[in-house]
């Protein structure tokens, strides 16, 4: 009976995993929405979520791009990924620095809210308050509630 049940479970998992078709990565389909796969199905998912919480997975920064726009203001874009299963809410603050490393005082330097859904990419975009901005520093903090 036990062996039969295990075989049945294995067959169901295989069937579920075969339903998953790879798609264009520009569209992020969340778990529960897309077809299951070997790595993400009703059996494996809870284990994965517990393990993710146990090892403390969170958000990571993948790429930072900065450029000067046609008006002479520096713009930056930070792209990252949330490795955790749950949504991560956080605040970020961009400090702009001039050519000599001094902080440019600005009202735009404020704590702004952002969030990253579980297993999803996230983006931050900012524009410098003045043409003398040459570099930047970004600080982040978790939103408690």
């Amino acid at each position: 009976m036990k062996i039969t049940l295990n075989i049945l479970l294995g067959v169901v998992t295989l069937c579920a995993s075969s339903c998953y078709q790879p798609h264009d990565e520009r569209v992020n389909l969340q778990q529960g929405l897309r077809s299951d796969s070997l790595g993400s199905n009703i059996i494996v998912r809870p284990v994965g979520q517990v393990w993710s919480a146990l090892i403390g997975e969170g958000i990571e920064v993948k790429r930072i791009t900065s450029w000067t726009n046609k008006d002479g203001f520096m713009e930056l874009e930070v792209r990252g990924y949330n490795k955790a299963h749950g949504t991560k809410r956080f605040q970020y603050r961009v400090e702009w620095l001039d050519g000599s490393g001094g902080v440019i005082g600005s009202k735009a330097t404020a704590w702004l809210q952002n969030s990253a859904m579980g297993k999803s990419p996230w983006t931050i975009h900012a524009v410098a308050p003045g043409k003398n901005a040459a570099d930047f520093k970004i600080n982040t903090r978790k939103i408690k509630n």
Partner: protein
Amino acid sequence: MRHLLSLFVCTLVLAGCTPETRNIDTINDPGKPVMGLDYRDFDQAASRMIQSLLGSGTLTKQGGGRYVVATGRVINDTMQRIDTAQLMAKIEQDLMNSGKVVMTSAVGGQTATSDSLIYDVRDIRDSDHADEFNADTLQAKGQLIAPELSISGKIIQRNIRYDNNRQQVEYYFQLQLTDLTTGLRFWQNETVIGKRGSNKSVSW
């Protein structure tokens, strides 16, 4: 006697439990959000507006130079006593520091952003008191620069019942940039700040 002593001790203890006054760390304030609008919300709204405006390319004047901008009416359509000049001051400061814009105090939709002394000195020039002043130091006619653009907007509040115990309050910050010559709107932006909390909290 014993009851009196207990009451005295209790009063002393309760008096010592009064929260003490502290300065807010406005740079890294870890305080809880409130249902109303606080300085952090204004900072957030102003920051997003400034970045949107500076990133839009609208403030680049053809032929070079800086635009002369006046602050128009910013309507407070919330249940709170907000001085909208408080929000606009943050935006005006960064606009001027950007080097793209110069603000005018001669014309404005809000008294806080205009300087009545501009016209007071002209009234003096045109009055009998003008003789008291050195004529060379009085403002000549035709000196004021008219604004080219105007920035105006609205702050809207919506209260929604979320469930039996909670309410949701939404604040919409809307700003627009208008060319005063043609009446055309060159830039517009809306930032939403939403709060969800107890029905017992007040947002006014």
